[in-house]
């Protein structure tokens, strides 16, 4: 936690490298690029949640002037079996959620495409919609999908969860065919540990489907080059994974697919090869460029929000607060996603960063006729933390212990074995709890007016890993270009610039970071799982170090001084202790980059293959006031302490912390994708679906805690996901402190808070 002074770049707050273009409107997003001969696509979405498609009437649409084609599933050159969205971008014979694309209309103009889409008439035979996830699990219940193309399998699960996904459950329960996956995590004797407990609390917690609500809707433009290369310019978090997904869908060799990841207008987990198969499929059929830009309404209905979950949890402790056992069932609504779900990671994260004597946790991935589940910042984690951190508060009350003390007594430190069976790496769970404990808001929480309260909660994200590479190039003018294939999400490129500048000896203003495409860039995995800075950043560090070695070798010859006696400061190589003997990086670069030059280009390649994760923990303190008459919850203050390893750029770190807090407020109080009993979406616009506006987010006191990650670049770790996770239980615990109410369903809207207050009992 000490300020670090040995670095000149690391730890200094600087503006994001992408900020000037974004705030002046100069950034060109995926929907902006000019493509000659471009066609525009408009999807036709299913109006039924579950139905058989009897016919698709296209003639009227085709008669609209400017409409080029109306495509249905059978028209696309899909070459793989399966029911995932990659290989079934348009529903074949069965639609499995309202909003599923059934056809696309492709036209010379956006208006013609929209006119045409209106005229496509789809005839359905209604099937029973499956919308209640708990009921869907019971043997004999109607199935959410009748036509099963079994072998689904892509590459989309591994991106998010840098952890094992648990054992498949061996003891078969009686479950319906809607249960696509079961997980069982079991160690120690939970029954005995509960029996030996002095206090036990339990509850069933519900969290709804949540929309990522990125500013830029899903968009992709696809075309064929004359040499038959399929090029897709898109808003995606991962170019290589999109390339692999399209290769799988259309059975094309990888080298015939080039993915260009354009500047991202927000993603939060939701942008992984969802609309690219549609645009690419149409371009392959029509052999003309096709652009698909979802409208906001389509994006609400047809994309891949976070799963709804039901979490049944029971925890126990001894008198002194030592936790004993945890047992529970994490029921995850996957919607139509047959490929993967968060039951694995959610059943792991529900144990929190705490030591348990025994655990017995099951996870269930259940199909329903709602959406297609996708990732959202900390997939599976907020629902798990809502259950656990609420119950920990209740346990503390039952035992007469301070809630922070209870958590501190059980928080893991390096080496403690978690529910995954693996030891926790270095992490700052204890440190972040200590920081909020000493905060004035916590210390003065007992002297607040009526109906006000302060709540605390702790969350963590294990962090992901994936091998990655980067290239560092010194240009003729002495500036540096860093090339990776990572998508610049949440400011990672700005972090790369700081890492490279520090490692090489330049000012960060002289570093440009290029996000290359799949044809030209070194390999980087997708931007997700809180792993980019940790893994690609490490590769950037090594690339800059490798380039620096080349620089010193050349400088050594020019100056006739051994490389070990040279240093690089602000773009100048000089003798240690004799600063007048020097040569600039620019000069060396000019000597190298010319006809007849004497030195190798000053370039380096670096790679990383991290195997140990770098978990980030975040503790939240929230101060609320509850209006007992209306049920409105007002946030009066917010404090969050997060272990970030090392803050490469504190301004960006704080930005991530604030953004996470804001999205946590959305989970807690506002957001819910709700369906009616027929599976029709009721909150499919921003007039119905509330997100936290600036005026609803209070001042946030961000406390950066630095527990360096041993393998991270300068000790940095991934920080994107941790700050969203424990917001909802912190707010719930604050409401409990204010008015004594324990809410077990999100979001905690005014009508729900009011109804619960008037029940006089917990909901």
């Amino acid at each position: 936690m000490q300020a670090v002074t040995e670095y000149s770049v690391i730890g200094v707050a600087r503006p994001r490298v992408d900020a000037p273009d974004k705030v002046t409107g100069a950034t060109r997003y995926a929907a902006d690029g000019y493509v000659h001969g471009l066609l525009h696509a408009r999807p036709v979405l299913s109006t039924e949640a579950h139905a058989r498609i009897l016919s698709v009437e296209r003639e009227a649409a085709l008669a609209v002037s400017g409409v080029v084609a109306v495509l249905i599933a059978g028209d696309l050159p899909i070459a793989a079996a399966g029911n995932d969205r990659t290989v079934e971008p348009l529903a074949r014979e069965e639609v499995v959620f309202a909003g599923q694309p059934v056809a696309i209309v492709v036209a010379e103009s956006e208006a013609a495409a929209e006119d045409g889409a209106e005229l496509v008439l789809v005839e359905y035979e209604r099937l029973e919609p499956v919308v209640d996830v708990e009921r869907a699990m019971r043997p004999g219940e109607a199935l959410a999908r009748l036509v099963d193309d079994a072998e689904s399998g892509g590459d989309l699960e591994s991106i998010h969860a840098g952890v094992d996904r648990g054992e498949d459950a061996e003891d078969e329960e009686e479950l319906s065919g809607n249960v696509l996956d079961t997980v069982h995590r079991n160690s120690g004797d939970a029954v005995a540990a509960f029996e030996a407990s002095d206090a036990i609390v339990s509850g069933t917690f519900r969290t709804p489907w949540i929309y990522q609500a990125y500013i830029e809707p899903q968009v992709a433009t696809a075309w064929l080059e004359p040499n038959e290369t399929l090029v897709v310019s898109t808003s995606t978090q991962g170019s290589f994974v999109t390339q692999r997904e399209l290769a799988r869908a259309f059975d094309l060799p990888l080298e015939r697919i080039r993915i260009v990841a354009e500047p991202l207008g927000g993603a939060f987990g939701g942008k992984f090869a969802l609309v690219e198969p549609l645009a690419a499929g149409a371009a392959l059929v029509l052999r003309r460029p096709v652009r698909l830009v979802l409208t906001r309404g389509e994006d609400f209905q047809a994309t891949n929000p976070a799963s709804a979950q039901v979490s049944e949890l029971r925890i126990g402790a001894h008198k002194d607060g030592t936790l004993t056992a945890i047992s529970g069932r994490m029921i995850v609504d996957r919607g139509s996603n047959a490929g993967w779900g968060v039951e694995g990671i959610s059943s792991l994260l529900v144990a929190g960063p705490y030591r348990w004597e025994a655990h017995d946790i099951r996870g269930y991935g259940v199909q329903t006729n709602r959406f297609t589940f996708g990732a959202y910042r900390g997939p599976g984690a907020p629902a798990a933390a809502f259950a656990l951190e609420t119950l920990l508060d209740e346990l503390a009350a039952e035992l007469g212990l301070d809630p922070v003390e209870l958590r501190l007594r059980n928080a893991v430190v390096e080496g403690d074995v978690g529910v995954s069976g693996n030891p926790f790496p270095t992490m700052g769970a204890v440190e972040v709890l200590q920081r909020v404990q000493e905060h004035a808001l916590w210390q003065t929480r007992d002297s607040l007016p009526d109906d006000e309260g302060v709540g605390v909660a702790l969350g963590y994200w294990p962090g992901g890993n994936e091998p990655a590479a980067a290239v560092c190039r010194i240009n003729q003018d002495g500036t540096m270009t860093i090339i990776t294939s990572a998508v610049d999400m949440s400011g990672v490129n700005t972090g790369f610039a700081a890492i490279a500048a520090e490692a090489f000896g330049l000012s960060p203003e002289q570093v440009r970071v290029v996000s290359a495409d799949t044809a030209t860039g070194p390999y980087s995995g997708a931007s997700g799982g809180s792993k980019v800075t940790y893994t690609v950043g490490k590769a950037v560090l090594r690339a800059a170090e490798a380039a620096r070695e080349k620089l010193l070798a050349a400088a050594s010859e020019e100056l006739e001084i051994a490389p070990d006696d040279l240093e690089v400061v602000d773009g100048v190589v000089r003798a240690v202790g004799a600063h007048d003997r020097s040569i600039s990086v620019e000069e060396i670069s000019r000597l190298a980059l010319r006809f007849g030059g004497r030195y190798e280009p000053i370039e380096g390649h670096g790679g990383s293959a991290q195997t140990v994760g770098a978990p980030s923990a975040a503790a939240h303190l929230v101060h609320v006031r509850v209006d007992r008459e209306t049920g409105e919850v007002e946030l009066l203050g917010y404090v969050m302490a997060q272990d970030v390893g090392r803050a490469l750029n504190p301004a960006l770190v704080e930005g991530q912390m604030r953004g996470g807090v804001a999205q946590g407020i959305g989970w807690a109080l506002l957001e819910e994708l709700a369906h009616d009993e027929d599976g029709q979406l009721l909150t499919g616009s921003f007039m119905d679906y509330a997100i936290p506006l600036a005026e609803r987010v209070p001042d946030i006191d961000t406390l950066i805690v630095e527990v360096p990650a041993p393998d991270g670049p300068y000790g940095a770790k991934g920080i994107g996901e941790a700050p969203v996770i424990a917001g909802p239980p912190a707010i719930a615990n604050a409401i409990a402190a204010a008015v004594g109410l324990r809410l077990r369903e999100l979001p905690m809207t005014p009508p729900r808070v009011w109804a619960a207050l008037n029940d006089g009992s917990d909901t």
Partner: protein
Amino acid sequence: MIPAQVAYVRASTLEEAFDALSDPDAKVLAGGHSLLPVMKLRIARPSLLVDIGRLELGGVRLDDGKLRLGALATWDDLVRADELETPALAAIAECAGVIGDLQVRNRGTLGGSLAHADPASDMPAVVLALGAALELRSSEGERTVAAADFFRGPFTTALHADELIAEIVLPLPPHGSGSAYVKVEHPASGFALAGAAALMQPDGSRTIAVTGIGAQPFLLSNNTEPGAALAEAEIYGDRFASEEYRRHVAGVVVRRALERAAERAKGV
């Protein structure tokens, strides 16, 4: 999000507007903040848009003991008008200031909103409570309809298809009056789950109107306690806010509006 084909005419005089409105499928375009979204969703598909935005129908003025609000006055005009900075008229700017966001308030118009008659919109409660009348014009001439007779149901008013709202005319409450608008809003749309406007006069009389809870905004009877009046009212419930919640919260905002109006009256 592209509207269906539509013709467009910009009226430079009232007569031109009335001519254009002889097309029964024509729609009047003012600020466009209610009409254009439903056109983009193709819920509304008028054949002709009659843009009245350039007509001289704006402004706020005091005239012969009456307050005259132009139909094209934007919410922001109302927020900023000096004429409205009195305790008796405070509800108008208070209400206008909680409609939408800054961009909406810069474009959305008073007349457009009243004509649209969304049952959850805010300002109808205020014009009802302040006893406003609406001056309507058509090629046939002019007529005046009391606000209490204007709102007929969800998105339904006394306005004829060929008529325009010209002005909203309010009697100036006696010195020593106070008014207020209080709402509990839907967290997404900002529209009222329950909104109440109240006018307290020095003789102790009071007028209360509510919005957001039923088919249309309505006045609460002067002869009944608000709670009793609300208990008998037909109130809407939906997935987000039940009928029971709306009825209860309506009572809360009515009480709070009355308290605030009374404070303002006393503060003179």
